[in-house]
């Protein structure tokens, strides 16, 4: 098998990601398509259902270690979380927490690709997302780390953006995006002068993988390569983060310190805010960030710079 051919994570379907990311032959799916556990709501709206409601769940091995996995399919309803889709995520997380010692996973992997709540299913979808958050935090409290992988072209937005930030570890590619409100929502709310959702450079500067890594919102930045995601997930298996009051307070301090890096009034900023933020975070050559490839960007981390100094 050639080691040189890169398999694009962004171009894979949810099922392809699962089959290429995990140890070959180790995958066992729960509630597979033949069970037809699909949305009871969509047909009433004239929208075809998917046999798996847009999410694949099961168990497998990663570098020989037992893990549970959920993978969202971004091409079906933008990965939107409906009632059944959410219930499958919650069920997987509860099963991880309640598993007997012989079946207990070393981690739960969430291959997130979602615009957030599936608005067709309204309250059922909203409730589902809040249940996912609760279930995820319960899993972490039980000592099982949760890893989120983000690299699909639909990004990870809305409620799923919040879910991702509840996890122990986030791996993103430079193509991945992570945020609460998506670009079109921000534009519709604040106007095109504030945020032009068609400005792809702006969208990636403010929600893309490089920005999230530079500002500390994601833990690993990789290239758009399934093998790179696999390596990053394996490396993150034994690095759970504490889930307690001091760690939460430290996160709040970090966020408020970051907020103070930028002036409050937009007219005080020359150029764009993202580049200014990166330079104030200590990255030399911040203006070149959008054109740098991932290995070059990783090398310019301030820690690496200070080690060299």
């Amino acid at each position: 098998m050639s080691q040189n051919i890169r398999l694009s994570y962004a171009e894979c379907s949810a099922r392809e990601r699962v089959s290429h990311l995990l140890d070959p032959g180790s995958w066992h799916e729960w509630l597979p398509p033949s069970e037809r556990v699909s949305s009871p709501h969509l047909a009433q709206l004239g929208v075809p259902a998917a046999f798996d409601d847009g999410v694949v769940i099961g168990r497998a091995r990663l570098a020989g270690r037992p893990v549970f996995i959920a993978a969202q399919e971004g091409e079906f309803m933008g990965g939107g979380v409906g009632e059944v889709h959410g219930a499958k995520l919650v069920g997987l997380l509860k099963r991880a927490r309640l598993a007997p010692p012989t079946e207990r996973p070393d981690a739960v992997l969430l291959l997130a690709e979602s615009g957030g709540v599936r608005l067709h299913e309204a309250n059922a979808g909203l409730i589902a997302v809040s249940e996912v958050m609760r279930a995820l935090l319960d899993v972490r409290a039980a000592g099982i780390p949760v890893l989120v992988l983000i690299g699909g072209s639909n990004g990870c937005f809305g409620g799923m953006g919040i879910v991702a930030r509840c996890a122990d570890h986030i791996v993103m590619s430079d193509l991945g995006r992570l945020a609460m409100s998506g670009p079109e929502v921000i534009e519709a709310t604040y106007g095109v002068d504030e945020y032009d959702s068609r400005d792809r450079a702006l969208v990636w500067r403010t929600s893309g993988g490089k920005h999230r890594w530079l500002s500390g919102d994601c833990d690993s930045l990789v290239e758009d390569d399934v093998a790179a995601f696999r390596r990053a997930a394996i490396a993150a298996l034994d690095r759970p983060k504490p889930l307690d009051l001091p760690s939460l307070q430290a996160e709040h301090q970090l966020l408020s310190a970051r907020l103070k890096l930028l002036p409050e009034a937009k007219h005080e900023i020359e150029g764009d805010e993202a580049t200014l933020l990166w330079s104030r975070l200590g990255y030399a050559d911040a203006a070149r960030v959008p054109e740098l490839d991932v290995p070059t960007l990783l090398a310019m981390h301030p820690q690496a710079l200070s080690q060299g100094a």
Partner: protein
Amino acid sequence: MKQIPAGLEALDYRFAGKTQLGAFAPVLVGVVGSGNLEVLLEPAAGHHCEIHIETSARGFGAIWQAVASDFHRRHDLAGVRVSINDMGATPAVVSLRLDQAVSELLP
């Protein structure tokens, strides 16, 4: 003008076939996305190829009939249930997905 009501259209076709498939693990290909579809193959008792379609594009029964007949002419399968969720895929895409599903099925 004929009014086509909103909602999904369900279509069913049934062909007598010769290539008996026997037992196999269900196969799923494709995704329910715009202009795309998913195809699920499952074993079924008897000597028929049964095709069930749910589609968001209403009023194209004659074309589905032709695509399903062509599929059966190519493969002549028996003992299989084909289930399709369609979001407006063109006939060529449907035929390719059906062939992809069969290619994953046969060794």
